[in-house]
């Protein structure tokens, strides 16, 4: 419980110095946490993940990783940079961004190669991971030949092969069919069961009970509108409605249309 991985204090971030993306965010993520960053479109979830992955740095406020303040200059130190990249992995929302090599195999091994893993170790991890993800037959394919679901699996593999302590996921099931979503959720759950930290940005309430024990809600002001356990947040209908997260179902009863909010009972 008292083992913080990330601590953010009053973190603000703007794009090009004028478009605000995060506004005075204070959060804490502990080792082994399973957290969801829940928010409607444009509330800064992806930006926050980029800050946690040290791709962006706050304009104001501070962020620390395992007690050490993160700032851009720190990443000029190759030893620190490598150590951080080995411990934190981000799966981007758009798999086309993440799959930039000519073949699937080259994409998966890209991370460990840059981070200096031994080649035998990389080959072993590649074998194991492709078996688990059921993507062995895709290894020599080109990324543009894959379906969206296959691309998502390969993106996940390209990060899981590093075996990071913290896995950051940006909308992991967006655009996937139910069977592929199921497979990915099971894999993420297995990853967390091994004591790893999982932080997921999403607006899909259906997957939240499986992906999170703790939830932070981000609002239109790009700040934290609410925090609590999965049960507390999903039962707070007002909070969800205020933040454009409540599902309103419309269906027919006895020949007339009927609307009601959809509930997401926590598992």
């Amino acid at each position, binding site marked *: 419980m008292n083992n913080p991985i990330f601590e953010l204090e009053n973190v603000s971030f703007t794009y090009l110095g004028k478009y605000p993306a995060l506004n005075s965010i204070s959060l804490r993520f502990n080792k082994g946490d399973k957290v969801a960053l829940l928010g409607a479109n444009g509330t800064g979830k992806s930006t926050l993940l980029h800050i946690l992955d040290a791709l962006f740095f706050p304009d104001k406020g501070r962020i620390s990783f395992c007690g050490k303040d993160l700032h851009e200059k720190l990443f000029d130190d190759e030893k620190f940079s490598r150590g951080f990249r080995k411990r934190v992995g981000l799966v981007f929302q758009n798999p086309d961004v993440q799959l930039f090599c*000519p073949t699937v195999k080259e994409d998966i091994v890209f991370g460990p190669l840059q981070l200096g893993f031994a080649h035998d170790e990389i080959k072993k991890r590649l074998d194991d991971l492709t078996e688990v993800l059921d993507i062995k037959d895709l290894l020599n394919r080109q990324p543009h030949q894959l379906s969206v679901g296959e691309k998502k699996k390969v993106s996940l593999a390209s990060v899981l092969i590093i075996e990071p302590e913290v896995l950051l996921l940006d909308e992991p099931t967006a655009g996937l069919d139910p069977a592929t979503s199921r497979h990915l959720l099971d894999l993420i759950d297995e990853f967390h069961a091994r004591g790893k930290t999982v932080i997921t940005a999403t607006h899909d309430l259906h997957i939240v009970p499986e992906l999170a024990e703790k939830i932070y809600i981000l609002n239109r002001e790009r700040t934290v509108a609410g925090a609590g356990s999965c049960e507390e947040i999903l039962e707070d209908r007002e909070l969800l409605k205020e933040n454009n997260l409540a599902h309103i179902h419309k269906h027919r009863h006895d020949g007339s249309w009927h609307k009601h909010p959809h509930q997401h009972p926590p598992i």
Partner: protein
Amino acid sequence: MKSKHHNFIQRTIINFLEFFKNSLFFEEHALRESFMQNLSPHIKFLGIFLIVLLTILMKNILAIAVLYLICLLFALTSRIEIGYFLKRTCFFVPIFAVFIALPAFFADFNFALVFVARILTCVSWVILLALTTSHTKLLNALRCLGIPQIFVMTIGMCYRYIFLFAEVIENTYFAIKSRVGGRVHYKHGQYIASWNIAQLWNKSLELNKQVYEAMLSRGYTGEPKVLNE
């Protein structure tokens, strides 16, 4: 008449994109078991590189023609349909040749003829290489021949994202078509086209930034490393 004209533009755009994708991305011929396909990619690359160099240095049109005929012969023995091969060559040759050589035709006809013949021969050999070798093997050959990894990676990434942008152009065309319905005034058409070119440029810049972030996130520090197999 209007409809025919409109269909002509549509066919041109779609056929161009299809042809471009087929030329660059489908490896049907590279997978066939035949003469050029069975040669080592390193030997093919080095051999064709030397032939291209030789062609550039030649001034005798007959000698260039002999090299061109040998190329056609190799294409035939590699089970590439000659019509298919000529179509692909003719697609790329004007891009390199016509606009540069056109003014020369009026000044020095012989020079322009040799110039176009050189380009036709060089392009044909390069297309023969591309058709008979899968691009991943070609990139590996470049690596093995000592081409710096950063160049090989850049070529690989260009190849990867050209396909993505060809799809974006195709989808954008259909999105415009689905909303426009009939024929558009040419001035408005120019406006739509120029706006979309600008949009594509912005998209490519954004993608470029995001891909670099994805590389940094996985430990890239400016010197790409590859798996030795």
